[in-house]
C-alpha cells in the first residue's frame, strides 16, 4: 500500500512539484526529495525544534506535517534567509557574532522560529525571545548567545 500524490508548493519563493507518498513528512520531502538539507531532523516528535520551517509564515514542526498537507502552501526554510551565497542576513550575522551557533544542528530551526517571531513582533521583549527559543533544544550554546543576538539586532534597528 503506497499511495502517491503530486503536489505543488512554493519553497523559498520557487514553485516546486513533487510526487510523494502520502505518508511522507514535510521535512523528509524537503531533505530527501528537494535536497534542502539545512532543515534538520532530530526527535521526530515535535520536541527538539530542529525541523522547524515556516508554512504560510507560521513556524511549525516539519516532522509533524505531511508533505501533502503543504500542497499549495508557501514554505520557507533556512536556505531562503541569506540574500546571496556569499552573505548572511542580519539575524544570522548577529547569531554568529554572539556565539549563538556552535555545532549548527539546531540552528536552522531556531533561525526560522526567530524569523517568524521578528515578523510578528519587530521589537520582542527578552521574555518573548526566550518563549520562542523554549521551543528548541540546543546542547551547545546555553541559549544566552541567541538571546543576546536578537537583542542586539533589535537595538540596532
Amino acid at each position, binding site marked *: 500500500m503506497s499511495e502517491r500524490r503530486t503536489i505543488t508548493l512554493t519553497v523559498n519563493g520557487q514553485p516546486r512539484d513533487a510526487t510523494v507518498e502520502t505518508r511522507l513528512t514535510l521535512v523528509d520531502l524537503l531533505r530527501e526529495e528537494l535536497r534542502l538539507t539545512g532543515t534538520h531532523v532530530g526527535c521526530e516528535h515535535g520536541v527538539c525544534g530542529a525541523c522547524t520551517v515556516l508554512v504560510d509564515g507560521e513556524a511549525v*514542526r516539519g*516532522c*509533524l506535517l*505531511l508533505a*501533502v498537507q503543504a500542497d499549495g502552501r508557501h514554505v520557507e526554510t533556512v536556505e531562503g534567509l541569506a540574500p546571496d551565497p556569499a552573505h548572511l542576513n542580519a539575524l544570522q550575522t548577529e547569531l554568529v557574532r554572539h556565539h549563538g551557533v556552535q555545532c549548527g544542528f539546531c540552528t536552522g530551526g531556531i533561525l526560522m522560529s526567530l524569523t517568524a517571531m521578528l515578523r510578528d513582533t519587530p521589537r520582542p521583549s527578552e521574555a518573548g525571545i526566550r518563549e520562542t527559543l*523554549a521551543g528548541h533544544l540546543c546542547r551547545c550554546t546555553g541559549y544566552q548567545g541567541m538571546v543576546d543576538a536578537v537583542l542586539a539586532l533589535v537595538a540596532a534597528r
Partner: protein
Amino acid sequence: MKPPPFRYVDPTTVEEALALLARHGADARVLAGGQSLMPLLNFRLARPAHVIDVNRLDALGAIAPAADGGLRLGALARQRALERSALVRERCPLLAQALPLVGHPQIRARGTLGGSLAHADPAAELPAAMVALEARLTLRRAGGERTVAAGDFFVGLLTTALAPDELLTEIQLPSWPARTGSGVREVAKRHGDFALGGVAATLTLDGQGRVARARIVGFGVGPVPVRMVEAERALAGGAPTPAALAEAGRLASAAVDPPDDIHASAAYRRRLAGVLATRALTDALASATGRAA
C-alpha cells in the same frame, strides 16, 4: 519513511468526513493539528488503516461569538489563532490564560482546540479549562449529532465519549458571568513541557463580594481533569479570604489521587494540587475584583 502505511483521505466537507468515519471509524484516526497523532505515527505507535485529515474542513475553524454572549469555537480552531483572538480574550479570559501554557508557539501554530480535547492527555491544560468553563461539545456522526458536557466527555486516560464514527465539530463556551475572575497555574520541569500538575479555576462573586460560584479543576493529577467539588462547595457563600482560599487548597489536595511516575511522586503531586489551587483562586479573585494578580 517513518509513518506506517495508511490510506490518506482529506475530505473537503464535514458530511464527507462523517461518511468516511461511518465506514472506517474503528480503523481510522482523525488528523487535525497533528501535534499528538503525528508523533504516534512517526514512532509507529499508532498504525491506523485510514488517516482522515480534517484540515480542509475550513468550516470547523471558526472563532465566533454566540448569541448568548459566549463563544462558538470550531474544533479545528488553531491554538495560536485562539491565543491571538481579541474575542477570546474578551469573552473567555480563562481560555486566553490557558493557551500560552500549551506546548510552544511552534506547536500551537498547528495544534487545534478540538484535537487537544479529543486526544485527552491527562496533563493537558485545555481539557481542564473546558471542564472549568462548563463547555459543551458537539459530536457529529452521519445522520445525527449530540451535545456532551465537557465534564462528561473525558472518561478515562486518553479516552473520551467520542464513538468511532463521531467527529468533534464545535465547542460552545457559555457567556462569562459578571464579577468573574479566573486563573491557571501549573508546574512543569521546563516551560512548554507537559505539567507535573496544574489547576484551572474560576471565581464568581455576588454583589456583597461573597463567592457565588467557584470552579476548580486539576490536570496532571488523575486520568482525566479532576473537578475539586468539595473545595468549590466550601467556598460557596463565604467571603473569599486568604484563609478560605487556603482551606480550598487543602480540600483540593485531598480530592486528588495522582499517579506516581519518574517525573514526580504521588505525594508531591497531591501537595502541588493544593498549592496551585490556592494560587489559581488567588489570581481568580484578583481578576474578579478588577485588580491585577
